[in-house]
């Protein structure tokens, strides 16, 4: 590090320019983090999907039901560890804007199929005992300032309509930060009780866990074969396939985000590359002097690269800090519209690596130019 002073002196030669270049890096990194967290949020479903879970939906349409009576037939197929069933409730809490998903669940089995959504045992026991009980994800509870013991009315126009009252008895937390903590669960029995006879006994979809993920294709096929030509044909997929399909329906968001990101990085590369090139050109004669007094070509390349890398690291770090500060604001602005916006460490690391690559690339050409400089020519130039 004996050259630190030279590099430092060069860095601060033009302070305005240094600040501008660092600023460009910071902004580009901020945009990168922003685009990645949004992309992650759109793809969240596929990200959290359990490898050993299968989803069974009605083949005709996702909004058509499947009878509860299919449950026993499904369980006859070997290799299934646990099964639960859910219904989409689609109710409204006070106002349409307050959207969060409400699921009717099978209280005996939901926990066995989704072990990553953790509820304290005493809360779960209270849930089992209370027919009108409900468990809610931590994010939704926080959003509406709900506490255990609150009574929560949810309006619906389906299922006979009216306002349904629930007692909040538990709050679940995800094991990983990216787990969905917005769902609202209540009991199948309470749901059935309020339905008219013709609506009873239908579930929206089943989710099951298999003993061995390698068995999934066989089990999926066996389930669909079992109900072929029945009035309610099924479609069974792994949870990740189901979620990936869901994500694809958002269209080319992935493509849009990647193209915006690429354009931004290309632009950044141009700007910093140009700046480095100009700053190297400015001190052609200085570099020639360095060479004349015996510095090797490699050292000259090292000076230039070290300078551009230092700018990249400082700018990148600033951008990432800004992102850490801004992501919660974005997450708040998008509550109820997208799954949780979370800044994962891997995004930060990836951002820093990208900054380093751009820094290296933008310093490389001017550095090589400086390296190839012929002392005689450079010194002759005024």
């Amino acid at each position, binding site marked *: 590090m004996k050259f630190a002073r030279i590099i430092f002196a060069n860095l601060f030669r*033009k302070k*305005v*320019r240094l600040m*501008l*270049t660092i*600023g*460009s890096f910071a*902004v*580009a990194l*901020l*945009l990168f983090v*922003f685009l990645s967290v*949004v992309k992650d949020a759109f793809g969240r479903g596929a990200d959290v999907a359990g490898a050993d879970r299968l989803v069974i939906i009605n083949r*005709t*349409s*996702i*909004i*058509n039901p499947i009878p509860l009576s299919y449950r026993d037939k499904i369980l006859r197929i070997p290799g299934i560890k646990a099964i639960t069933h859910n219904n989409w409730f*689609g109710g*409204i809490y006070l106002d349409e804007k307050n*959207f969060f998903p409400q699921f009717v669940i099978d209280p005996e089995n939901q926990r066995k199929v989704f072990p990553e959504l953790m509820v304290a045992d005493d809360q779960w026991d209270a849930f089992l005992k209370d027919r009108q009980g409900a468990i809610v994800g931590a994010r939704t509870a926080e959003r509406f300032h709900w506490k255990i013991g609150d009574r929560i009315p949810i*309006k*619906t*126009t*389906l299922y006979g*309509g009216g306002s349904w009252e629930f007692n909040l008895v538990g709050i679940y937390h995800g094991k990983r930060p990216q787990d969905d903590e917005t769902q609202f669960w209540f009991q199948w029995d309470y749901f059935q009780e309020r339905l008219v006879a*013709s609506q009873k006994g239908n579930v929206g979809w089943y989710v099951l866990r298999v003993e061995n993920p390698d068995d999934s294709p066989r089990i999926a096929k066996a389930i669909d074969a079992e109900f072929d030509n029945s*009035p309610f044909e099924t479609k069974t997929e792994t949870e990740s396939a189901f979620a*990936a*399909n*869901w994500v*694809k*329906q*958002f*269209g*080319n*968001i992935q493509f*849009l985000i990647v193209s*915006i990101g690429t*354009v*931004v990085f*290309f*632009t*950044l590369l*141009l*700007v910093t*590359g*140009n*700046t480095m*090139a*100009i*700053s190297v050109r*400015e001190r052609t*004669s200085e570099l020639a002097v360095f060479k004349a007094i015996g510095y090797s070509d490699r050292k000259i390349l090292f000076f230039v690269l070290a300078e551009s890398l230092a700018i990249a690291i400082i700018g990148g770090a600033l951008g990432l800090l800004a992102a850490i500060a801004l992501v919660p604001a*974005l997450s708040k*602005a*998008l509550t*109820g*519209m*997208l799954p949780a916006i979370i800044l994962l460490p891997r995004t930060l690391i990836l951002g820093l690596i990208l900054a380093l690559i751009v820094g290296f690339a933008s310093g490389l050409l001017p550095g090589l130019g400086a390296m190839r400089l012929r002392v005689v020519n450079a010194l002759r130039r005024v």
Partner: protein
Amino acid sequence: MAAKLIFGIILTVAAICVVLLVLVVIGGVLAGLLAPFIGNVPISYNFRSIRERWTSTIVAVLGIAGTVGVFVAMLSLARGFKATLVASGSPGNALVMRAGSSSEMMGGITLESVKVVQDAPGVARDSSGPLVTQEVVGVMPFPLISTGTDANVQVRGVSPNVLEIRRFVKMTEGRMFQPGLSELVVGKNASRTYQGLTLGNSVDFAGGHWKIVGVFDAGGSSFDSEVWCDGKLFNQVLHRPENIFQSATVHLASPDSFNTFKDSLTTDPRLNVDVIREIDYYAKQSTVMTRLITILGGFVAAIMAVGAIFGALNTMYSAVSERGREIATMRALGFSTWNVLLSFLFEALLISFAGGILGCLVVLPLNGWTTSTMNFQTFSNIAFAFKITLDLLLLGILFALVMGVLGGFFPAIRAATRPVAVALREL
């Protein structure tokens, strides 16, 4: 109290700064554009400099082009999306649903109620009777052409006279379905986005075998992503109770008769319904998506704009600082500070204008490019197209010019006001 005062002062100062900045930008653009005509500005010097330093020029142009391209593309996406969702339906139509329903899918309306609706005042009629379509909606999986994976397509069972009610919908190919037959007509975007939905083809869904007999154009609205068939038949196929529909849409005698129509239905004791203008209903159905796109687009555009100004400033700054001696020479030759300043503004504007034009040209092919996404509120897939209009392009170029002025102004001031002797001495 003190905190409030400080806050107020900060706000005032900020407002003054913004106003000054805007004035500087406007003045800069005007002055820069008029530069060749006022005073004896050394414009030919700028042209020669651009040619001499062509690498820097290209970098600056490309940098601005990239920013303007993304900016225009984002705006056109948001605009296309809004045009599709918000502008669906007609103000001359009214939608009737069960009271309290947030969407058609949640609705339910019996045949008896539909009969009451048909006789209500304000409903338009023609020779065949009142213009009312009672509808059944469902979402059916169809594979996307782009990925081959299933997407939820909104299938709408309608009355055979639906074209009399939604008059903005026109058959472009083939014919309307015949009542009672398993025939489909598909929207033009649906036909382009999903596999197998072309004229003359047959598809299987909901346990039926359907033949596609026509393609319709709904003027770019969300109906263009839908598939329509006979409502009664669709109800049977879905095993839903007979004579219950999800919504009814009426064509009003005139858009003004909406209130008469609404009042007569909402006060009728036999009915328990909500009445809403069709166009308002679709705007409401897309509030979440529209907000999402606005917030995301706003964030990206704001960050991009800051980044672009940094980039432009940096490029122009480097360009100016590199030729300190040239500037000093010009001034030593007798060009005034003012002339040098104008000359640099002109150069900045020229470069940013070229960048703006290039950026617009690059994104222009996106116009009309159709992509699809899912509306969270209806779970159904909607195709929409990028809409690049003249005003968006002009906005993009204006954006480029503003960046050019911001980027060129301060370095130019610096260049023009440095003492000649100091600048000339510099190596």
